[in-house]
């Protein structure tokens, strides 16, 4: 155990965590050059396509240090985006130290701080690393100053590095060995292993990712999940190299996996403690903080026959995404489904895409909502994150909505347009700081609902990609709220309903009608789309009928060709949801959140 080191790489998004992991992997020779690819730990297609890390990834690196001894360095690469911070906090529970990366050009950013605090909560050794020193815009002195003043860390402990060019790698490896303490714990004690992640493998079933704190686990052992007391026989244990690699045992200090033929997916809970049935530990390890979703939406199968399939898939998906929560829900328009909570809009987007890709599901997502708070006339306080549960307006004494503090960094030249955007989004109490020549830090308090509604895309576009944006939820504030419904051909589509600020209702309604008009393909008959508050119609648009068909010659009995064409079109229609007699494509449900300005 003396020669094990467990550590995570943490930073703000894009500061180079995965690239540094690449260099460490290459330096220690775990991967031969032929199989190497950039950001090798970002193994999901969706991570590679978007160039961001979504899941934490563990890998064990063998390292022969300058002290002449051999070490096993268990590295966990973490995501930087705020929506995936739950991944970071769980990874840290398996570690004794972190590499805290700071981009030499961008300096300390919101998630640098947030992740630092997570590391401090876990009492971890922190090694500050200034990355991207190769950049011409690198400003090392400024970053050192920030490490001191903003992070409160000793700037003398930093290491300079360029993950891209492989500068400083050996120094980092030596620092890991020297400065991060070896894991504590005792292999002789009863087993206590913390489940920090899991995934479902169609051949092996549930694969548990865990950190062993005490004791030993090996194949043949009967393990017990402390949360519900179920027991399973261990089939295999091992380490994560680039692939799963079987080992005889995992002992105190190790990070690895356990396969135990777990059939009931729900038995495996992230944060639970695994022990041995015949020699249990006295109490479970401290688990994880509960996730607090901030964005909510319902998921429905496009074909109602697929409900069970969706239910099974969500269960398996949840194994691998502990920050995703869901419960049963049903909609008049869309049938049986699930109400889901997400840590943010990116998270929501990723969940939808992963469900479709990894489980081959066709799903509809309802319009996302934040969680509102209502005080009723009888003084009861209720939280509503689903427009379907909007209380009877006559009973409402007070409505409140969540506010965030938005932190934005941007070049000064965009200041005017960004401030205008923030004001349009009901932003208040602005604070502005010049952080360097030509750069400003701008902060506003805004309703979270406004951020969900097309803020991020517009912010990106007005700052031409040079701005960064981050937020924290601060509190609930009173607001005049109404429920806006959307009617398609006179039929209410409950999944399109939104809770909105009274002053916004009309423009939101018009926008939704317009957007839907673009998204819903022309059909054989005229379609009326209306926005309504109660029985009052506040917006409308119409889609005129589709009138074109070919009256070409159907040649010599060649009916098959034409049928194949129609079959293709029909398959296309399958990705749409029939509401009454109108087919509404998936995209329509998210489109109502976009404004016309982009």
């Amino acid at each position: 155990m003396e020669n094990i080191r467990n550590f995570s790489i943490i930073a703000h998004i894009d500061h180079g965590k995965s690239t540094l992991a690449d260099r460490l992997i290459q330096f220690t020779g775990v991967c031969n050059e032929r199989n190497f690819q950039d950001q090798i730990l970002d193994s999901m297609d969706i991570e590679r396509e978007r160039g961001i890390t979504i899941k934490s990834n563990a890998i064990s690196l063998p390292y022969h240090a300058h002290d002449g001894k051999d070490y096993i360095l268990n590295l966990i690469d973490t995501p930087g985006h705020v929506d995936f911070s739950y991944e970071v906090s769980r990874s840290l529970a398996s570690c004794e130290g972190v590499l805290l990366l700071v981009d030499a050009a961008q300096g300390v950013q919101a998630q640098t701080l947030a992740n630092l605090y997570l590391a401090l909560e876990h009492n971890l050794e922190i090694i500050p690393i200034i990355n991207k020193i190769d950049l011409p815009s690198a400003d090392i002195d400024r970053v050192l100053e920030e490490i001191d003043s903003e992070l409160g860390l000793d700037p003398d402990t930093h290491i300079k590095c360029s993950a891209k060019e492989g500068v400083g790698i050996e120094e980092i490896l030596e620092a890991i060995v020297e400065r991060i303490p070896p894991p504590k714990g005792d292999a002789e004690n009863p087993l206590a292993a913390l489940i920090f992640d899991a995934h479902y493998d169609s051949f092996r079933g549930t694969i548990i990712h865990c950190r062993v704190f005490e004791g030993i686990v090996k194949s043949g052992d009967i393990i017990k999940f402390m949360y519900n007391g179920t027991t399973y026989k261990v089939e295999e244990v091992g380490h994560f190299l680039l692939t799963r690699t079987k080992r005889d045992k995992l002992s105190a200090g190790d990070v690895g996996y356990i396969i135990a033929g777990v059939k009931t997916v729900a038995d495996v809970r992230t944060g639970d403690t695994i022990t041995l049935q015949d020699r249990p530990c006295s109490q479970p390890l401290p688990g994880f903080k509960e996730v607090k979703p901030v964005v909510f939406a319902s998921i429905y199968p496009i074909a109602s026959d697929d409900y069970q399939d969706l239910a099974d898939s969500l269960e398996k998906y949840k194994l691998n995404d502990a920050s995703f929560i869901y419960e049963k829900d049903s909609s008049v328009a869309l049938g049986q489904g699930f109400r889901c909570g997400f840590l943010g809009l990116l998270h929501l987007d990723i969940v939808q895409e992963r469900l479709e890709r990894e489980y081959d599901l066709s799903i509809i997502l309802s319009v996302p909502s934040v969680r509102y708070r209502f005080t009723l006339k009888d003084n009861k306080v209720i939280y509503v994150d689903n427009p379907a549960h909007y209380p009877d307006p006559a009973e409402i004494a007070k409505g409140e909505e969540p506010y965030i503090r938005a932190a934005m960094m941007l070049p000064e030249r965009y200041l005017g347009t960004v401030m205008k955007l923030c004001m349009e989004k009901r932003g208040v109490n602005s604070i502005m700081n010049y952080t360097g020549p030509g750069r400003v830090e701008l902060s506003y308090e805004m309703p979270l609902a406004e951020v969900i509604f097309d803020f991020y895309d517009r912010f990106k576009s007005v700052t031409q990609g040079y701005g960064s944006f981050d937020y924290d939820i601060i509190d609930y504030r009173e607001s005049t709220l109404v429920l806006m419904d959307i009617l398609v051909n006179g039929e209410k589509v409950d999944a399109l309903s939104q809770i909105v600020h009274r002053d916004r209702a009309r423009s939101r309604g018009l926008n939704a009608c317009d957007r839907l008009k673009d998204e819903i393909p022309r059909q054989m008959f005229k379609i009326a789309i209306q926005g309504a508050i109660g029985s009052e119609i506040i917006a409308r648009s119409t889609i005129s009928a589709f009138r074109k068909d070919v009256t070409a010659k159907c040649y010599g009995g060649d009916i098959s060709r034409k049928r194949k064409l129609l079959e293709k079109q029909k398959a296309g229609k399958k990705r749409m949801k029939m509401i009454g007699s109108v087919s509404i494509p998936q995209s329509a449900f998210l489109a109502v959140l976009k404004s016309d300005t982009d």
Partner: protein
Amino acid sequence: MKDNLLKTPSSQSGLYIHIPFCKSKCGYCSFYSIKSLNPIPDFIDALQKEVKFYSKTFKSFDTVYFGGGTPSLLRPQQLETILKTVNKYYKIDPHSEITIEVNPGDVSLEYFKALHSIGINRLNIGVQSFDDQILKFLGRRHSASDALASMKDARNAGFANIGIDLIYGVQHQNIKSWEKTLQTAINLKPEHISCYQLSLAPKTPLYSTYEAGGIKLPSNKMQAKYFFNTSEILENAGYLHYEVSNFARKEYLKSKHNMKYWNHVPYLGLGPAAHSFLNNKRWWNKSAVASYIKDISQDKMPVEEQELLTPAQLQLETLFLGLRTSTGIDLKLYEKNYCTDLLEDKKSIIDTLIKNHLVEIGGDFLRPTQTGMAVADSLALI
């Protein structure tokens, strides 16, 4: 569906014979034909052998249709030989409809007389237009006066059942000139008129020109206008608009042969690229004269591909074919074949379509309105 056997209204099968030769290719045409006429004798030999192949599968026909290509490139004797062989192996109903497609440029009074004498009783003349500029644009070999002359000759030769084909939505044409063409056609009093909208199939010369921006097609709105005006004009002139593109002067003058395609009645297609249908099976021959002749000379069926239609596929076909005809879908038959009640199954969408005057229910039939016919393919996707 019981035994996978489709029940159909009329029982007699149809015979289609593809004559895959054209002196030149028209710019819009995607039908299979070759320009060399040399293989014609070998082709006729092969065709006669192919006729025999199916004498166990099919017993009798009450329609025979020579299509192409250009069947009028065959001499009457050659057509007679083919018909004789057909008669030898199958029972041909004495009241059969026996049609040949002819090209106005290739025919004469004598030729028509000869056709009549060998038992052909229906002509389909590929007029396409009465406007020389348009004929040239389409790449047709004949002129408007050829078309007028052929019509006259055909009548004089004794043909009492003549259909003509016309194309609309063509460059150089506008609604006015199209209506003039229609009027000319009406004056000739053909028993049957087919009006096809020009559609550009990939791999045709006109399509390439279109892709390169060389020609324009009328807008959706104009196409609809062509369609509705055509229907109105011909109906006013006493024609029944009985299928999306087809008009007949009387109920009994509808194309019996083509109706089989639309009603899932079995048909046998002989010759290269010809399609056949029986029960739930559809198959088609290779689109190559040489391999067709070679296969048959080796006693092999020259079949390119066959497919077994699933009930769902048959159902879709029933919908899109039925909704192309003024008769519509026979609901009783539909239920018998697919064990499901169409009106119940698709109640809400059909109600909407009825409300929007796209379909109507008459007796046991669900049929398209005139507007519905214009979007028949989309209707089938309900």
